[in-house]
């Protein structure tokens, strides 16, 4: 970027009104888009998935990125949130008369998942690394088979006919809320404790960090996020079954986290958005629609040979892109760095160098 442009950009990022302004604009847009049909229903749907995936990636990053563990249980927490919320809206809460009760169900889904997150935090006191990863994988399998064996919630058949209560404004609200909570947590003594645990657990204890409490809180908040996302997901898809929340679902979220970058909230938002949008763009119908402006002479053979077979290659192209990203950015696109807008003012100023000019490092990050 050229120097004056860079300065304008820096000035913009310094403005106090920037974040509230963006939030208000985003909320207004999230209401306006479905209301006035600014985007077609398919794009709206993709936007909602982007929002849900942002919640999933940011919350998983807390454990896998900031804390440096490798949890595979995220889809399990998602399932708990999804089932809790779905059962509430279908059997308990009169959402048909009072749609305003939907957030109550989402919150309950998040809290139910958080409660189970506590359970997974306990083995993390004793076990780390690969072994904890295996335990979280086991936990995911347990959640899945427990649900499969409860007839009251449909067993392996799942729950069909869930109300379509997830709307764009609600996704926007919950995504902002979860990102805000995680960001606040990260920039507190507990968040620094989480980072310290990743770096050196013994040294953290000897610097007075209550590592058990810190792990408890990180797992709880992380699974709360997964629960909220699960609740929104259930009321968007309108059908859930244990198979939806298998290890493949976890893998998707892992890819978003590691693609975007570990220990970075901005990275997870980027990763979730890129992954979701790219996978949609690679659908043959989307590519065909995107390229339909080409003259028939070019488009028709392209469609014949490439676009129509893209479906087969979609799941090759995407992982291949991931491999390339990992080779060139081993910590992900934003690994260990953060967008300046997410760093609280106090933290930003505290890290500034002594010289009044403000060094180059005043830029994007402080942890790189």
């Amino acid at each position, binding site marked *: 970027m050229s120097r004056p442009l860079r300065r304008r950009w820096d000035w913009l990022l310094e403005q106090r009104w920037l974040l509230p302004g963006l939030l208000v604009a985003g909320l207004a847009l999230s209401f306006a888009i479905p209301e006035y049909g600014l985007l077609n229903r398919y794009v709206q749907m993709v936007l909602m998935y982007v929002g849900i995936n942002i919640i999933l990636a940011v919350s998983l990053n807390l454990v896998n990125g900031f804390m440096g563990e490798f949890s595979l249980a995220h889809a399990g927490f998602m399932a708990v949130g999804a089932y809790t919320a779905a059962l509430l809206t279908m059997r308990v809460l009169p959402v048909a008369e009072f749609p305003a009760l939907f957030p109550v169900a989402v919150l309950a889904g998040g809290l139910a998942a958080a409660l189970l997150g506590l359970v997974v935090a306990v083995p993390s006191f004793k076990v780390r690394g690969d072994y904890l990863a295996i335990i979280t994988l086991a936990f995911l399998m347990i959640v899945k088979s427990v649900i499969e064996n409860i007839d009251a919630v449909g067993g392996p058949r799942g729950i069909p006919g869930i109300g379509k209560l997830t709307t764009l404004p609600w996704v926007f609200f919950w995504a902002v809320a979860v990102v805000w*909570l995680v960001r*606040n*947590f990260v*920039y*507190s*003594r*507990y*968040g*620094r*404790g989480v*980072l*310290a645990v990743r*770096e*050196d657990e*013994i*040294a*953290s*204890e*000897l*610097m*007075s*960090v*209550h*590592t058990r409490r810190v792990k408890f*809180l990180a797992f709880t*908040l992380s699974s709360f996020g997964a629960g909220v996302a699960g609740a929104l997901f259930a009321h968007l898809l309108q059908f859930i079954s244990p198979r939806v929340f298998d290890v493949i679902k976890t893998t998707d979220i892992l890819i978003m986290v590691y693609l975007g970058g570990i220990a970075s909230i901005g990275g997870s938002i980027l990763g979730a958005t890129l992954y979701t949008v790219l996978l949609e763009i690679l659908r043959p119908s989307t590519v065909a629609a995107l390229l339909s402006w080409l003259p028939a002479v070019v488009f028709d053979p392209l469609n014949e040979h490439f676009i129509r077979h893209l479906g087969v290659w979609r799941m090759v192209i995407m992982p291949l892109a991931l491999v390339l990203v990992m080779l060139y950015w081993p910590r992900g696109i934003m690994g*260990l760095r953060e967008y300046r807008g997410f760093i*609280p003012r*106090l933290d930003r100023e*505290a*890290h*500034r*160098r*002594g*010289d009044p000019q403000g060094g180059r*490092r005043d830029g994007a990050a*402080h*942890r*790189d």
Partner: protein
Amino acid sequence: MALLTATDVRHYFGGLCALAGFNLALEEGELMGLIGPNGAGKTTVFNLITGVYRASSGSIRFKDTELVGKTPHQITALRIGRTFQNIRLFRDLSVLDNVRIAHYARARYTPIEALLHLGRYRGEERRIVDDSRRLLSIFKLERLAGETAKNLPYGMQRRLEIARALAIGPELLLLDEPAAGMNPNEIDQLMDFIQWIRREFRLTILLIEHQMKLVMGICERIQVLDFGETLIEGPPEAIRSDPRVLEAYLGEAPVA
């Protein structure tokens, strides 16, 4: 009454006896040295005091509190700070964050206040930043607050480690080979520095060191460990001339 008392502390690693009846009485304000050949059990003493290991038997008391059975963070919160033989900074974190992390136990806000950035959060965080920056400026590291710890040169990493240990607000400071890897000139500076922080922060210091120049130069009292047992304890002059110490370090004296 002594600030730190160890009474007949024993520790076994499996069947191996690492420490066989360790005794210590450290008075408030004292600067004491712990020396001995490699493998004598010096670092084990530090690990037992700070709760990294749990003593197999015996008692360690800090003021009126029994330390055996407490977790490291509880013991550290009682204001016992330490550094490590091989530097153990939080390498990927900033210099400032290294120091801020050590304020964990002294920050007074709850998880809810942290999640919402409300209540005492702001005031406490402001105070932590101010305290940390003051500490860094004392150690001439303030300009590097935003630098990643691993990028610092060795000497500065050593300094940062001491700064981090002081950030917990210790009354007792345990230094594990602070002069490791330093040249004679740097050791002279370090000796002055340790004396200075001792006065400035009103510390009681227990240090492990192989550099005899440093140990003999600043310690008021020295305890010599060998094979997990206390060989001798006394002022530097007495240690210097004791044949048992020479023997422990260099092997048996040749027959004259």
